[in-house]
């Protein structure tokens, strides 16, 4: 399939890199700014939820849960204050789309959040942004001030009688705060340790109130869906269950890394790497691809004809996750790579669950032993055993995120590990 066959309408990427795009003036004039909000105020909450359901919008943070269904979980009868929280923690390694959405199209996020708040009956919203995005937090705050000054936030928005306050809340460097209940604890001023579920946030989330947590890219889709209809949004996607476009974050050893906005389910991994990103750096051989952030099990070069969408990747034992595609050429040692990935999870494990806290450390140590030429014959079986004892045995998905990559690297690239153990050195070492 050629490039053009897959290309379609884009919602965001044309504004990225344009410093003007972040102003309210640009948003109103060039992007039909806040017209969806006006339209939404004329709709019932159920109608908006129906449109979002029809749009086939699925959570863009990694889990891929249908957004309309999630919004429908909010108990209408609850008298407790409700909250809408935007997960802007963007800490999954390989993911860098929300950063551009926030720094170039902040009003799209604000409008999406006001509509979301109106729909679920929340009058308070928070954007939980990772602490390192200092500059992006400032830009968001400036956009929020503009929105307040012009009546798009605050009391009685656009004369609708609906009030909504929005606050930027900075994280402080903890991957686990991207997990929604870890995030909520952090928002409340606690350690970002994930909670036991149930209760799910829709029942008891922030400050004990019913809460929806949505990713940045998910919320920025809402104004488009309200304005042009769920059906239209669904038609942007090429897969049955996935609507809209998707921002693919490509990094690693390709010629043109960066963001690519493509129809959901519109391209294969091979097309993305070779047609869009210009192939492998230095025309080297492809060795491995991590398709959905570092938590996604690795793929071999034989597996890249897979369509980049939720179901096709799940079918071959990996995941689309946050659409962070990391490409590895023959130049980099895969044992070193999985050691580095595991080092990350060991560092970020919150420590609540023993399998994750202890297991990640053991996996890291064994991987380093192999990488540094001191590996033992039984180490591969040991690694698989530790990983299996983490997988599915922890409160949150961090345990699975650490185990899955180790299982897949050891199973798919066994020869690389064996070469280290047998040769008593890393073949890539100088």
């Amino acid at each position, binding site marked *: 399939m050629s490039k053009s066959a897959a290309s379609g309408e884009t919602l965001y990427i044309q504004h990225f890199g344009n410093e003007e795009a972040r102003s309210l003036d640009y948003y109103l004039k060039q992007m039909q700014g806040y017209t969806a909000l006006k339209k939404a105020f004329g709709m019932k909450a159920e109608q908006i939820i129906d449109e979002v359901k029809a749009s086939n919008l699925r959570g863009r943070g990694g889990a891929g849960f249908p957004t309309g269904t999630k919004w429908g979980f909010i108990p209408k009868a609850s008298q407790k204050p409700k909250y809408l929280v935007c997960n802007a923690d963007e800490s999954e390694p390989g993911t860098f789309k*929300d950063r551009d959405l926030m720094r170039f199209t902040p009003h799209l996020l604000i409008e999406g959040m006001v509509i979301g708040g109106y729909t679920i009956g929340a009058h308070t919203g928070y954007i939980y942004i990772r602490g390192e995005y200092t500059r992006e937090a400032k830009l968001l705050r400036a956009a929020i001030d503009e929105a307040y000054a012009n009546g798009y936030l605050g009391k009685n928005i656009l004369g609708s009688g609906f009030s909504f306050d929005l606050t930027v809340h900075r994280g402080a460097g*903890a991957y686990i705060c991207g997990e929604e209940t870890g995030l909520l604890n952090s928002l409340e001023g606690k350690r970002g340790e994930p909670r036991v579920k149930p209760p799910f946030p829709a029942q008891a989330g922030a400050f004990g109130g019913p809460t929806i947590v949505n990713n940045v890219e998910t919320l920025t889709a809402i104004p488009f869906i309200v304005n042009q209809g769920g059906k239209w949004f669904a038609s942007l996607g090429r897969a049955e269950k996935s609507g809209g476009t998707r921002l693919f974050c490509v990094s690693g050893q390709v010629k043109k890394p960066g963001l690519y906005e493509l129809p959901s389910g519109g391209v294969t991994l091979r097309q993305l790497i070779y047609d869009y990103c210009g192939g492998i750096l230095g025309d080297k051989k492809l060795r491995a691809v991590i398709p959905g952030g570092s938590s996604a099990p690795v793929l071999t070069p034989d597996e890249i004809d897979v369509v980049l969408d939720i179901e096709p990747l799940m079918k071959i034992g990996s995941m689309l996750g946050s659409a962070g595609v990391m490409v590895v050429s023959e130049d980099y040692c895969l044992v070193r790579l999985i050691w580095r990935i595991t080092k990350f999870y060991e560092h970020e494990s919150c420590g609540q669950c023993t399998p994750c806290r202890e297991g990640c450390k053991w996996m890291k140590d064994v991987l380093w032993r192999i990488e540094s030429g001191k590996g033992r014959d039984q180490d591969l079986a040991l690694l698989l055993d530790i990983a299996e004892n983490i997988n599915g045995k922890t409160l949150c998905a961090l345990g699975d995120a650490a185990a899955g990559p180790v299982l897949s690297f050891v199973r798919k690239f066994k020869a690389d590990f064996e070469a280290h153990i047998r040769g008593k050195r890393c073949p890539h070492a100088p």
Partner: protein
Amino acid sequence: MAKLLSKKFYDEMQKLEPRYPSKVALLLPSLHAAQEEYGWLPPEVMDEVAAYIGIHPAQVREVASFYTMYNLKPVGKTHIKICTNVACSLRGAEGLIKHCEKRLGIKPGETTKDHRFTVHEEECLGACGTAPAMMLNDDYHENLDVRRLDEILDKLS
């Protein structure tokens, strides 16, 4: 006791307070603001944050120690944080760390004797498409190589 945190700190927190249904939610924002004034979080400053929020000082330490961005020890005037996660390592970040070690004579986690530089290996900064990346204090620097790193550091010297 004389207050260690400025009027600016208290004004900022007072403005934020109505945004949250609980005062404890001000803990992260107040630690950020306090660190902005001192460059790190001295124990007395954490105690003052505890008193302001109305929680036990141990609760502040429990939270502060969970997050990597809160400096519980003083750091150099320029805090260099080089990402060595997957995407940055695939693009040569390990070379940047080695170069920093050589140029500054310190290992990751250490501060130069003159307190001018601290170097840390950092986890993913969310700048993978423009890797390798680093933060110098609050600012991102992307698409780095040893030459660019030297140029940036030369400007500081």
